[in-house]
């Protein structure tokens, strides 16, 4: 564990409190500090990776568009034979190391904890707000808890993870764009009002 806590790429962009329109439709916006690790199966080794992940972490590796909540992390499908693992913060690099240890040379493991920001958006009108920035069909028939999609939000590369029925979404974006992204998100939420914890 490093002696210092990593600094959030958001700086002071998210100001705690209630903003935008009054009324009871306010959404909640928050940064979630997570560990993020990308896992790619080496050529022809997807089966081995899946077996190792199941054995070591009790995790399925989900198929396209889906997620799997293992005890230690959520696994999000992001590309063929490629997953993004999202976990609560742990000692620097520990998650990646344990994955690498489990998979050996059947997988390429890439640390992304600092490379991505996880922005949580939730509340009854979260889908309305997200629908201003994303062209995904967020209707319950098409998307819901347990689903994830890689698709631009506010024009930026993003992994949209529908976590629960509140609904709560994790929006996972490239860290160097995070401030601009959050500004777009808060603009979109002005109409409903939004609360930053």
């Amino acid at each position, binding site marked *: 564990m490093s002696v210092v806590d990593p600094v959030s790429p958001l700086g002071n962009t998210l100001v705690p409190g209630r903003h935008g329109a009054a009324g009871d439709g306010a959404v909640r916006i928050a940064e979630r500090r997570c560990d993020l690790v990308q896992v790619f199966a080496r050529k022809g080794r997807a089966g081995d990776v899946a077996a190792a992940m199941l054995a070591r972490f009790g995790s399925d590796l989900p198929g*396209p*568009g889906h997620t799997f909540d293992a005890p230690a992390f959520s696994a999000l499908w*992001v*590309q*063929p034979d490629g997953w993004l693992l999202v976990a609560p913060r742990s000692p620097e690099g520990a998650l990646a190391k344990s994955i690498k240890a489990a998979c050996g040379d059947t997988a390429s493991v890439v640390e992304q904890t600092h490379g991505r920001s996880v922005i949580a958006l939730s509340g009854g009108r979260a889908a309305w707000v997200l629908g201003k920035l994303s*062209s995904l069909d967020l209707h319950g028939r098409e998307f819901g808890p347990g689903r994830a*999609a*890689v*698709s*631009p939000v506010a024009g930026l*590369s993003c992994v949209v993870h529908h976590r629960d029925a509140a609904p709560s979404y994790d929006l996972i974006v490239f860290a160097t764009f995070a401030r601009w992204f959050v500004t777009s998100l808060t603009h979109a939420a002005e109409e409903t009002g939004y609360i930053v914890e």
Partner: protein
Amino acid sequence: MIRIACPFCGLRDETEFAYRGDATVSRPPADAPIEDFHDYVYRRANPRGWHVEWWHHAGGCRQFLKVVRHTMTHAVHSVGLASSTQVVPPE
């Protein structure tokens, strides 16, 4: 708005993709004459009708997809993986 059904991600707007042109040409072997490389780079199908083309799902799964699209109606006939040999224009 062209919409492309990515075999992995589902139906998505064209704005998620980057176009990469004619997918019927392939890179010549190393020992091929320069002429072949010229053709690979500069001699590209430009039909009025069905066109087989690369679309990079840059905003999604990052796969280069082979897409058969009509250059008048813009209808997408089929979409497949880079390796697919099934992605061909209709009769």
